[in-house]
């Protein structure tokens, strides 16, 4: 074992149950987050094979992907969604869990929001979930990654996964982000630079002064988007910010355990001189608010930029991709980003629905009105606890007075599995993480931005540079 190890090495090695000579390892899983979309087939598989879950105390579950965000008292109207959510209820009731936040529970919410806020995600853990944005939890110096349903079943049955170490990449961020520029902009700028496959095969560690200066919310946003850069896992070393965030959370350790845990967490960083297979250096000073113009998160430009011109792209596959994206998005090359007008605004998703995100958006919305040309501007808190906190701070009033809809928590229009969706041709400024064709509704057009940028776009009806306008 080399003396200087990366954080990733430490996390991987400390969870290796056994390893084959070719490096294929059995990796022990501490926390298994479960939601309704990717778990029913796994539980079914377990039952069919007459197997029992190995350790239900590792499971924290919630319903989020297709729960409605309005009229909760009416329950879930769509019968297929309801079946999925009820199937989760039945599975958890039958086998058990450390914690379950079902539909309409006070602590229900997006799985990647509720894990950290309940202290279910702790530094040094391996965390998995049948959802690609599990990378979010890496913000806590965890090894956290998304798995498919077969692997959900594998973890249920064995508490382990078969894994091989990835290559390691360091994204080193110098300096601090400027006012009005957020972790979301940083994430998009990094993806714009390395591409959506730039991190494929890597586990990314985000480090440097620019990362140390981020709040836990900001770090989660960044790690959340690591998967959009192709990396299965993103992570950040533990420090005071991490420890302060976790103190007093319901599932966090207490008393003597807390002190021991904190002492251990302080070792969760890459050693000086540790080797990374690739390094990318970013200057946070140079990052400005970003807006995606196409159908992949790498199709992104600064807000003061223009929609690119495919005629200037030499690579034929790329050019064709750009042309297809522009056609889908209904955009002309060379259009100024600030000339793009929006039909809908979505502030939410596991990328940007935490309290800090809502505070940022509310700061822009305060005392202003949503532009009359915007059909719907909605704010969907990431969880019941975020919603309650926002209401305690009066943010709901700020949004409602400005003409935003204030919704119940869930994934909502991030993937449009419930009733919240774009109609064909509708254009949306969204704080979510994917702008793929049809992601927010068939034919819908998504521009990914930060919460501050989305709120500003709601007020003016088109994109504006949030640093200058307010």
């Amino acid at each position, binding site marked *: 074992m080399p003396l200087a190890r990366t954080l990733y090495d430490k996390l991987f090695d400390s969870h290796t*149950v*056994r390893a*084959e000579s*070719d490096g*294929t390892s*059995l990796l*022990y899983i501490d926390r298994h987050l479960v939601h309704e*979309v*990717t778990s*029913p*087939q796994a539980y*079914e598989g377990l039952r069919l*094979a007459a*197997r029992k879950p190995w*350790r239900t*105390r590792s499971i924290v579950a919630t319903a989020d992907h*297709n729960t409605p965000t309005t009229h909760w008292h009416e329950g879930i109207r769509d019968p*297929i969604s309801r*079946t999925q959510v009820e*199937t989760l209820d039945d599975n958890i009731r039958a086998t058990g869990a450390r914690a379950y936040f079902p539909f309409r529970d006070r602590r229900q919410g997006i799985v990647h929001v509720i894990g950290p806020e309940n202290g279910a995600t*702790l530094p040094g*853990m391996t965390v998995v979930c*049948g*959802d*690609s944005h599990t990378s979010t939890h890496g913000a806590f110096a965890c090894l956290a990654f*998304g*798995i*498919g*349903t*077969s*692997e959900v079943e*594998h973890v249920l*049955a*064995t*508490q*382990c996964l*078969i894994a*091989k170490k*990835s290559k390691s990449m360091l994204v080193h961020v110098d300096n601090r982000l400027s006012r009005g520029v957020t972790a979301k902009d940083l994430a998009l700028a990094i993806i714009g630079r390395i591409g*959506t*496959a730039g991190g*494929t095969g890597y586990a990314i560690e985000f480090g440097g002064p620019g990362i140390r200066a981020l709040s836990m919310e900001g770090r989660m946003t960044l790690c959340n988007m690591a998967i959009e850069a*192709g990396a*299965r896992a993103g992570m950040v070393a533990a420090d005071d910010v991490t420890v302060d965030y976790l103190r007093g959370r319901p599932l966090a*350790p207490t008393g003597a355990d807390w002190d*021991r*845990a904190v002492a251990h967490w302080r070792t969760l960083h890459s050693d000086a001189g540790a080797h990374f297979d690739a390094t990318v250096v970013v200057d946070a000073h140079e990052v400005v608010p970003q807006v995606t113009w196409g159908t*992949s998160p790498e199709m992104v430009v600064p807000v003061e930029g223009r929609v690119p011109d495919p005629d200037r792209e030499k690579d034929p*596959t790329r050019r064709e*991709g750009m042309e*297809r994206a522009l056609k889908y998005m209904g955009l002309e090359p060379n259009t100024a980003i600030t000339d793009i007008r929006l039909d809908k605004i979505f502030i939410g998703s596991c990328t940007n629905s935490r309290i800090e995100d809502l505070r940022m958006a509310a700061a822009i919305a305060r005392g202003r009105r949503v532009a009359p040309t915007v059909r719907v501007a909605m704010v969907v808190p990431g969880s019941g606890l975020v919603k309650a906190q926002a209401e305690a701070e009066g943010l709901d009033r700020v949004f409602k007075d400005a003409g935003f809809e204030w919704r119940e928590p869930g994934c909502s229009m991030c*993937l449009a*599995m419930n009733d919240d969706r774009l109609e*064909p041709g509708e254009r949306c400024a969204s704080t979510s993480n*994917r702008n*793929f*064709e*049809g*992601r927010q509704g*068939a034919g819908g057009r998504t521009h990914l931005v930060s919460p501050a940028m989305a709120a500003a776009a709601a007020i003016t009806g088109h994109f504006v540079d949030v640093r200058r306008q307010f």
Partner: protein
Amino acid sequence: MQPFRQVTGLVVPLDRANVDTDAIIPKQFLKSIKRSGFGPNLFDEWRYLDIGQPGMDNATRPLNPDFVLNQPRYKGATILLARRNFGCGSSREHAPWALADYGFRAIIAPSYADIFHNNSYKNGLLPVILPESAVDRLFHEAAAFPGFTLTIDLEAQRVHSANGNVGYDFDVDPFRKHCLVNGLDDIGLTLAHADDIRAFEERHFREQPWLA
């Protein structure tokens, strides 16, 4: 799981890079609690002219004649030829389920998204990686010769055409190959190490009791 040794089949070329999991199986079809039945909605938004919803009779829906899967010459294809970063996006296993349910046994592409790549193996769908230049060549061959057929021999780790024009070796992880060739169930293999797992837990929770 069905063992995978050798597959010979018609090749359908899908000439797009970064085909994401939302394109492979749109999210309105993810509400099922079963593993099967996703094939008719594979590539739904590209394949049909109307907007697909669960419960529709797919046989009566208007097909998009321009989409490659709908062209008569590719009917019955079992090998999908694709461009780089195939399967990017979500971790949902519905994507390989849909591909396998449609009848695909293998994909050939220059690269895949990690999770998709992993999920494919677990569902008996072989994701072959060939260099960009080889994939280019296969796209040309598939366009030039109607009925273009490839044989993928997993045991020999080789892809070759029935007409003898092209042949390429490919790499595959030995453990995954072993599981696929023998149709082995991962869970059974892991449970054979149950004692190791228990021993690990004992030590792990002694060192970090707050995780127990």
